[in-house]
């Protein structure tokens, strides 16, 4: 363990502020970003510091994308998907957002003792079906079982490997003033579908999660030769968090047009009912592409040919003279407000 003492004195975790890990530290909001900052500082990793969906690595003569995510969703099965499908989509999408062709996945299960084997079987089937749908292979894995009461049915951690077959530097650092923000479809469905089936909040709806692999539209954009500056799938924290991360990492301002953002009426209704802002609600099959304005029309045309991004549209633009690292929203009334990260997860606003 040589080298440990080098690191001990400068532990950058926010110890004083929160002596214990809170749910909010995983909620996609400001606390989570503080924790990630601390990790990045400790791991002294330039790649982690890029704050992209995955790392872009040169290995030997190839450029690869490498990413990981843990999936702890409850319930395990929800309208439009399940934890297995979610894991594959989340991982494949992060690779696609690096501009890579997703190739291989690893899967690591942490199972809670007592999990019905039939449940595990269904998740594994779904995982494989989604991997086939996304044209990736699961090539390595691991399984651990923890005592009952020390897990929550199934946790999946997945890592993904993809090959970058072009030379575009896709990432926040490539974003330029004048670029436009394309959104691949309507937002908020995944988060609302999950909330609808959560104990304590349950309501009836036909909303299904948008959970889907995004490989095809991204590879088509690349194949069409569209100049892509940044790609980002919308997950925890929603459209707002994704764009705030890009604005912060690029040091520019992003202006969004509220009226251009597609939201299904039922999603909007659920948000009104729960006092949520749909811009912050989770998605699992949506992404933003930031491209030069001149490429917008061609990019949208490509996206609209794919079912998963048929609803693609232009929702905002990157400007130079705004507040550095911020996202502003032009509201439906034509006024402007700043979109900021929440502290933790967005809580239903009831009172």
């Amino acid at each position, binding site marked *: 363990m040589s080298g440990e003492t080098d690191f001990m004195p400068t532990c950058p975790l926010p110890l004083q502020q929160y002596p214990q890990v809170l749910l909010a530290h995983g909620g996609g909001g400001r606390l989570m970003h503080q924790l990630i900052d601390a990790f990045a500082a400790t791991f002294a990793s330039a790649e982690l510091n890029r704050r992209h969906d995955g790392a872009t690595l040169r290995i030997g003569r190839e450029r690869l994308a490498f990413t990981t995510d843990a999936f702890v969703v409850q319930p395990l099965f929800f309208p439009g998907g399940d934890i297995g499908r979610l894991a594959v989509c989340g991982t494949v999408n992060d690779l696609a957002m690096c501009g890579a062709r997703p190739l291989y996945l690893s899967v690591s299960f942490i199972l809670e003792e007592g999990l019905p084997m039939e449940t595990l079987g269904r998740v594994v089937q779904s995982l494989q079906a989604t991997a086939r749908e996304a044209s990736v292979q699961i090539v390595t894995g691991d399984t651990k079982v923890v005592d009952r009461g020390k897990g929550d049915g199934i946790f999946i951690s997945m890592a993904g490997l993809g090959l970058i077959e072009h030379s575009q530097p896709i990432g926040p650092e490539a974003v330029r003033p004048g670029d436009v923000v394309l959104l691949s479809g309507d937002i908020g469905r995944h988060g609302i579908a999950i909330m*609808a089936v959560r104990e304590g909040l349950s*309501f*009836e*709806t*036909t909303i299904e999660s948008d959970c889907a692999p995004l490989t095809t539209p991204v590879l088509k954009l690349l194949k069409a030769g569209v100049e892509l500056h940044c790609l980002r799938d919308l997950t925890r924290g929603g459209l707002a968090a994704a764009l705030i991360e890009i604005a912060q990492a690029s040091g520019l301002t992003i202006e969004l047009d509220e009226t251009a953002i597609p939201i299904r*009426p*039922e999603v*909007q*209704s*659920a948000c*009104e*009912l729960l*006092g949520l802002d749909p811009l912050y609600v989770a998605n699992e099959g949506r992404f933003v592409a930031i491209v030069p304005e001149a490429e917008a029309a061609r990019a949208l045309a490509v996206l609209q040919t794919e079912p998963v991004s048929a609803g693609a549209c232009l929702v905002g633009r990157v400007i130079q003279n705004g507040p550095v690292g911020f996202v502003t929203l032009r509201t439906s009334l034509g006024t402007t407000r700043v979109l900021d990260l929440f502290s933790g997860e967005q809580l239903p*606003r*009831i*009172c």
Partner: protein
Amino acid sequence: MCLAVPGKIVAILDNEPLTRRGKVDFGGIQKEINLTFVPEAREGDYVMVHVGIAISVVDEAEAHRVFEYLRQIDELDELNSPDAS
């Protein structure tokens, strides 16, 4: 404080005092809502719902007031403005 959302009663499920309940539709989302405090509410009525409990029946006749008022003040304004076309 006091988020309240309008929804349409699609079914009355229970009529007992304290537990009078209905299924209420909020633009495609449905939820069971307590209707104790809106004894006059019937299927098809819109109610304002706060923390799972209806606190009023929406008066559909009054619902256009905000637009009528606007029309009136606009008209008033036009009358007052010498440059009205």
